[in-house]
Each structure stands twice: as C-alpha cells, then as structure tokens.
C-alpha cells in the first residue's frame, strides 16, 4: 500500500497488551481502540458510537476500565492493557465470561466484550456482592439494544459471586 505524506511525525509507543509487550510507530492521533483493532488485530474490542456513550470499546488500562475510543494510544504508553481476548486463561473461560453464557447475557454479541470488561471493573471496585440496583447503576456507561439488560444484570451478579467464591477458595 502506498505511503501517504503525513505532516505529523510518527511517535513510538510501547505497552503491554494481554501480557505481551507490543510496540509501534504511530500517528499521534491514533486512538487506543484503533491501535488494538487495526494494528494488533484484537477485534474483540468494538466501536459502537462516536461520543463515548456506548461502552462497546471498554478495556482495562492498568486495571481500570477505560473507553478505548476516548484515549489516545500514546496515552497508554508504558501501561498494561487487558482486552476481552486476554481474559480466558489456559484453564478455560473467566467466571464472568462463563456467567454471561450461562445466564444468556448476550444476543448479537456486539456490546458483550465491553459489558464483560465493565463488569470486571465493577467487581474490582465494589467487590463480589453486587445487588441488582448497584449493577444497573454501574452499567450506565454501556448500551445494549438486544437484551433489555435483564440477563446482563443477572450474569454480572452471578459472575461476581463466582469470582468471590473463587477468591475465597484461593485464600483458604
């Protein structure tokens, strides 16, 4: 593909994505989500809007949920990024992923990666005992058009509880 003249100088960026060190020379205006999807081909992180409202692009940056459409890739330089592709381990699905399947927390699947990443952030911030009102309030930044949220709320509650039980077992 022919190179295009670009007045902006490329900027070097390096970060850890799903445990792997990656680096690239980027146009400074490259968004984190563009870097993930277009350069790293991690297409599980989606773009559903252009006003930072829908949450389909949520990833974790240094452990906190971030809308990756609202952050420049260079802002994540030196940081650790986790995407939906980084959740399942060698032993299988993450309990939150499993809960979404078990409770039919997804239909078309487009919002799902953002929902799962937001759910994990919720557990990290608020602990594993999440009631319905708390879950609904904390889902404010994620839109779903298919499920009416009913089963997403159930899935997050169950996934959080499973994480809590898992942590308890690990501690004992």
């Amino acid at each position, binding site marked *: *593909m*022919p190179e*295009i*003249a670009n007045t902006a100088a490329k900027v070097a960026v390096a970060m850890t994505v799903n445990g792997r060190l990656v680096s690239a020379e980027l146009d400074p*205006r490259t968004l984190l989500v563009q870097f993930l*999807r277009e350069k790293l081909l*991690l*297409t*599980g*992180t*989606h*773009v*559903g*809007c*252009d*006003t930072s*409202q*829908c949450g*389909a692009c949520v990833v974790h940056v240094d452990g906190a949920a971030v809308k990756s459409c609202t952050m420049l890739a260079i802002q994540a330089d030196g940081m650790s990024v986790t*995407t*939906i*592709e980084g*959740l*399942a381990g060698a032993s299988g*699905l993450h309990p939150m*992923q499993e809960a*979404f*399947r*078990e409770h*039919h927390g*997804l*239909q*078309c*699947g*487009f*919002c*799902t*990666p953002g929902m*799962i990443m937001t759910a994990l952030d919720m557990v990290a911030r608020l602990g594993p005992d999440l009631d*319905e009102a708390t*879950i*609904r*309030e904390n*889902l*404010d930044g*994620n*839109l*779903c*058009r*298919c*499920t*009416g*949220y*009913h*089963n*997403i*709320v*159930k899935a997050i509650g169950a996934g959080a509880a499973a994480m809590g039980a898992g942590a308890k077992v690990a501690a004992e």
Partner: protein
Amino acid sequence: MNDSTVTPIGAAVRRKEDQRFITGKGRYTDDLSRPGQAFAYFLRSPHAHATIRGIDTAAAKAMPGVVGILTGADLAADKIGDLICGWLVTSKDGTPMHMGSHPALAKDKVRYVGDHVAVVIAETLDAAKDAAAAIAVDYEVLPAVADLAAADAGAQIHDNAPRNISYEWELGDKAATEAAFARAAHVTKIDLVNNRLAPNAMEPRAAIGEYDAGDEAYTLWTTSQNPHVARLVLSAFVGIAPEHKLRVIAPDVGGGFGSKIFIYAEETVCTWAAKKVGRPVKWTADRSEAFLSDAHGRDHISHAELATDAAGKILGFKVHTRANLGAYMSTFSSCIPTYLYATLLSGQYAIPAIHCEVDAFYTTTAPVDAYRGAGRPEATFLVERIMDKAARELAIDPAEFRRRNFVTQFPHQTPVIMNYDAGDYGASLDLALEMADYKGFPARRAEAEARGKLRGIGLSNYIEACGIAPSAAVGSLGAGVGLWESAEVRVNPTGNVEVLTGSHSHGQGHETTFAQLVSARLGIPIDQVSVVHGDTDKVQFGMGTYGSRSGAVGMSAIVKALDKVEAKAKKIAAHILEAAEGDIEFKDGRFTVAGTDRSLAFAEVALNAYVAHKFPTSEIEPGLKEGAFYDPTNFTFPAGCHICEVEVDPETGVTRIVNFTAVDDFGVVINPMIVEGQVHGGIAQGVGQALLEGVTYDADGQLVTGSYMDYTMPRADDLPSFKLGLTQTRCPSNPLGIKGCGEAGAIAAPAAVINALADALGTQDVPMPATPAKVWALAKTRAVRQAAE
C-alpha cells in the same frame, strides 16, 4: 444440558455461538480486512432539500492518498439503477404508489440531511475525510418538508409525487363501518402520534466491496439480515452484476431490528466502486452517520374512533393515519403502514366493521421502513390506547372491557384480511392479571400516594401477524417476492450434520435453536450439528430474518428437509438390515426393524449412504443430503397480555417502571431461554419508545437527535427486571406449532406503559416519549385539576 447431549425441543440449551462472542472472537464486518483495501467516506448533504447545480471534485482528487471520487454522474454513466421499494401499494383510486427516483448517489437533488452526494475512496479513512472536505458542491437550497402534519402543503420533493403523496390507501368496508357508527351508543375518539425511532443496532452498518477481475465477480461483505435479497436487488434492479457473479456475505451481524433488511446506498456504492477503483472498498458507519442514514421506524399521526353499543361491545372501528415515508421509499417501506399495520387493527377483539385510511407522505427526512414490529406496534398502540380510553369513558374496568370483546372462536376472520387460526386471549389475560397482582393495585396506589407518588397500571393485549408469509397471499397484496424459506441438511459420512439456512442470525441464536431441532430429530448430540447461514455461495437462497419468521418459516423448511433425510435413510437402513422399508422405525437416533433388536445408529446409516456398497444405487442415489423450500400456509398470530405498573414522582416528572409483566402465547417454544431473551429486549425497546426515544428534526430538516448525547437510549437503570409468563396454543399452520417471539415486547410495551401513565396522571393525553418534562407538566395539571374538584 451440555454440548455432547441430545437436546430436546423445549430445553433451555445454552448457546453455541456464545463461545466466540464472549472471548472476542466474533467476526463482524468491520473486523474483516481485505488485502489492498481502501476506505470509503460519503460526502453527505448538509441540507434537507436542495438542487445540486454542480460538484467540483478537482481539488479533492489532488489531495494526498485519494484513490478515487465518484458521484451520481458516474453512477448514471455506468447505468447503475435506482434503489427500489419492493412492495407495490395501490391507492384507493386505483393508481399505483408514486415511487420517487432513488439513486445511490444523488444526481441533481438531495432530499434529506445525510443524503449521499459523493464517495471519496482513499488510502485511509482520515485521508478520505480530508478530501471530502475539499469537494465543492453548489447547492440551491429549497424549503425543507420536515413536518409530517403539513407535508402535503410543503415544497414538492419528487417530480412524480404531487402534494408529496406516495399513496392514499384504504382497507376494510367503509359503508359497513359508517353503519356501525350510526347505531353506536357511544363513540370514543383519540388522536395519537406514534413517535419516530432510530433503530440503533449496536453494530453500525458496514460494507466491504471487492472485485475479482480474473473471475469478473464481485464479493460484498455487509451487515445484512438477508444477504440473498441484497444480492437479488443489487443484481436484478440496481444492475451491478448478474446474480452468479455477486457473492454477498453477512458474517456476524451486531443486531438488526429491521434496519439491516434494506439495501442501502453505501453497500451499493462500495460494491460498484470496487471495480471502478480496482481495490477492495471498505466503509463503516460511525454512529452519527447511522442516525442520519439508517432507515428510521414508526412516525405516524392517527385519528381513530371506536363505536360501542350499550352493553360495551365494539361495533366498529375507523382509523385515519398519516404515515411518514421520509425522502425515499426504502426497500419494504410501503407495506409497513399498510399491510403490516391496518391488517392488525382488529387486535384481539371481535370487531364487526373496520375501515382504515392511510396516506403516505414524502418528507425531507431519512427514509422510514421496518423497525422491530414494523406496523404492528403502531396498530397495537392505537388499538390498546383507544380500548383503555373507551373503557374509562364507559366506566368499565379496562381488563373487563377487553375480555368482553375478545375473539373466542377460532378460526376467526377479521374484517381486515387476517384469519386468526388459534389463540386463547382470556388465558393470557388471566395469567397476566394474576402475575401482576392486578387486584392488589389499589392498595399499592394508596401506599404510593401516601409517599407523594402517583401510581398507575396499564394493560396491553397485543396481537401480531408473524411467520411472514404465504407467498401467494403477499403477492396478491403487492409484494415483489415470495416469502418462503429454504434449508438444506447435509449429513456427512461420519454422521455429523451441517444445516444450511436462509434465515440469518444476528442475535436470535439460530446456531443453537436450529441445531437443537436437528439434534432432537436425528438423536445426535448438538455438538454434531453446525448451522451455516449468511453467505450466498454456501446457502442456495433465503429470504432472511425479519417478522419473527425464522422459527415458523425457517425451521419449518429444516423440518421438511429432515423429513426427506429420514425417508432416504430408512430406505438405506432397510437394505442393510434386510427388512422391508415399511418395517423400519426411527427413534432416538436408531433405525430399528420393528419388533426386533436389529438396529443401526444414525451415523452407521450415514456412512453407508456414502460408501454405497450395501444398496442398489440404481434405485437409491448415494449420499445423504436433502433440501427443502417451505412456504407457509398462513401468517402466525402470537398474542398476549403485557401489564405495566409505573410510579411517577410529581416533583421531578420521572417515571419509574416498578413492575412489568409479560404473558405471551408464542405457540411451541424450542428454547425458552432464548425466547425470554427476545421478550426482554423487545420490552426494552417498547419502553424506550414510550418514555425515552424520539427522532427529532427541526423546521429546517436538520436532525436534532444525531448522537447518543441527544437521542435517549434505554439504559440498565431505566428498566426493571421483567416478569414473564407463557400460555400456549399450538400454531396449526406449521409443522412445529411455532408462532414467533421476536417482536412481541416492542409491540406490546408502548401501550402498556402509556396506559399506566394515563392511569397515574388521570389524563388520556400522554404523548410519547413521555419524558420527565412532559410528565411533570401533566402531573402539575392533575394537581391543579384535583384542587379545583
């Protein structure tokens, strides 16, 4: 229930497709890239209505990274045809609808903000956007026609549509209806606006067009609910390529709700342009473009009157509706406010005479077409609002008034085409009243009042026509296509099965339910079944997914193909088991000689079918693969009762849904988990319409609600958890007894919510969306009214 078991019909089997979606391995159109692809950006009209005097692309073409810029003139030079509306509606005076010319890129005029003026194709999307900004378009701005109520008095939008009317249509017996009104004891009148909605599938539309010069063949990857129909339209009408030289692939699609049925300008242009520029051309809408250019839904203004006798029985119903088509007639736009609307105006009720007039207008707004429910939500909203209003005027309990007028004998021929085949409306009403604790409502209302809150309860007894649709019937009503479905069941030599279906899945879970059906029928584990859809090179043909038709029509085609597979396998088994064909029984995955212990597993017969050593191939062809086309014999008629209970804070105008009960009769349910999910999502969209959503254009035709900052989508904390119940009458018109479940929530919910608000606020004039500002004003009026009393 896990992957390696045989899955019976009726089991809540967990979804096979979820594995890829929960791990980020879905394959949506924008996730795909083609070698050498360039990026398309559409220059869109900033004006609602304007003549294009000239387009100067010279400066833009010289911009860095530009691969090509194409306009309507290039489209015309290549003799690319207009986008079409595939359903002919005829006006009451016998004239066919006036379909305005709809080129994929504007030729001499633009007709809404967002209309397509030119496409810029460049090495990057940013380069394409930069170049688009350098295109000079000389517009002569014309008056906008943004107000449906005054559309006939506005500037003429299409040369062939005076007064901006496409058709003035009617259904029913006018004289009989007038006669019914003449002997009425009471007439209830209502004026309603059915608010305009943006579908908002979370995945924005996208397309990649590619041309293979060696094969002279095109491939289009697109966000479609019906790739075969897209190929048919792009071949037979738009004329981009013959059908056998155009492959359309709809991979994972992130929701549709109707908006991805239609053949849009963007995928048309990307396909055509791929050959023009000699590169794959990729386009993905951003959300702002989606708001501007996805076909919107609803947008009716209606006046209705209901005539009742002294005993509270309905005598007649008349309706006059103005329907907005937008700037152009989208693919199925004409049938939505006519044959999918007026045909359902009998609701669940025995109404002797109905007359409905629908006038369909062009306006300088985005095209309007099917959105979840498509015509049927508009009908239900009208019927269920006027039922409530009439009940209150007649001082009859709304539940009792409905019950008094239910259709109770089946089949029931309505005065508006439909022949209801089965149902038990009293059963769903009874269960819903019980689940919602209707009797306990007065106490809850009093308790709320003591807290300074206003409670209301509202019913919506919806009916819909699904399983779309018998081909000859819709043909007689103007449809340009048949609405059957196809299926192919390929049994592999090792006994696993691929099912090819024309029903596209974009959230409905077909990969599970269809596999569940095959697993149950053939007695093989569900993980031995794959469902293939969404690729015109793999599936021979299909009409796609909409109108809750995938179960009733798509699965019925699979049943037909399975019948053929079983019949042939029995013949083969008979030869191997040296028995008469009539003595072979097939049960639990085994072919058994009746009354003996001699049997073969399904996989053994499959292998033998391909090895072909043990039967005479002069009589039985080798192999085990069967196809079927299924054409339904009737529409299906899902129906039910949804009850909403709201609590209004009169200080803030905020409406909280404190209870939502949905009782539905979907006929036979294959997978209750998936069916419940469909109901949840539908209710959320219906609640969205009632309380939150509304597309708004200003007087100049500018879209005011063009982003999620301006258009209110339902969020998790706007909704409660829902209470669901099922009643069941089997659908007699298809082999599985399925009625369909995809649209019920969106159809039923708006009237339930608004009826509840009307109850809470003590007025029938509750507009949608009932935003806090409007509800606050109504609560205030109520307080003033009460103080005066």
